[in-house]
């Protein structure tokens, strides 16, 4: 299955600033996704990152707050914009690769102060 490198692994940011999280896959994948996970909670889908077009956002998530890029079949970024303490969470990248296997990165633990 695909291997995902996600960075940064953690960051502490000031409110009002933005953070861009990078997700690199070691092989071309069909689909890429971004999830949010509060500590001790389940995963909530933010959006599907579409190659060469605008991401598809789930209810409650908007492009202005979480802009996503996917310039090719192996790379995607998620930006958390104008951060507030409520954005403190773990953000996870996922990819759907060969054999219909969904792989996850190790996550980015974000703390907004």
């Amino acid at each position, binding site marked *: 299955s695909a291997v995902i490198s996600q960075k940064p692994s953690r960051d502490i940011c000031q409110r009002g600033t933005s953070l861009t999280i990078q997700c690199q896959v070691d092989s071309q994948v069909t689909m890429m996704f971004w999830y949010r996970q509060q500590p001790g909670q389940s*995963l909530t889908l933010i959006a599907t990152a579409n190659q060469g077009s605008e991401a598809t956002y789930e209810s409650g998530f908007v492009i202005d707050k979480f802009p996503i890029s996917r310039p090719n079949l192996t790379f995607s970024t998620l930006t958390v914009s104008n951060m507030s303490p409520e954005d403190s969470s773990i953000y996870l990248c996922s990819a759907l690769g060969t054999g219909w296997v969904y792989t996850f990165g190790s996550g980015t633990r974000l703390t907004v102060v």
Partner: protein
Amino acid sequence: QQQVKQSPQSLIVQKGGISIINCAYENTAFDYFPWYQQFPGKGPALLIAIRPDVSEKKEGRFTISFNKSAKQFSLHIMDSQPGDSATYFCAASSPNAGNMLTFGGGTRLMVKP
């Protein structure tokens, strides 16, 4: 997102015992049902997965039982070990819903030595 309900939220099992986690879903279009294991500070890792054309799948100590008519599936961990202590998530996906994974709420398993 379509709902997947998972129970119990937490589970304590003695070493050597059987751990059983249950999930129920609503969307009959779901056609892929994976189980993920997550350790603290790590992303979810695929444990085992099943499609609705089979009622059971076994890989080592891990077995998925699937009941299509009841819209339920479960994970059985035989001979549970302290190293199995982690959070387990069931999930489901459908090609009619963008192929994204919808996760259950998670089960925190503790295996006592």
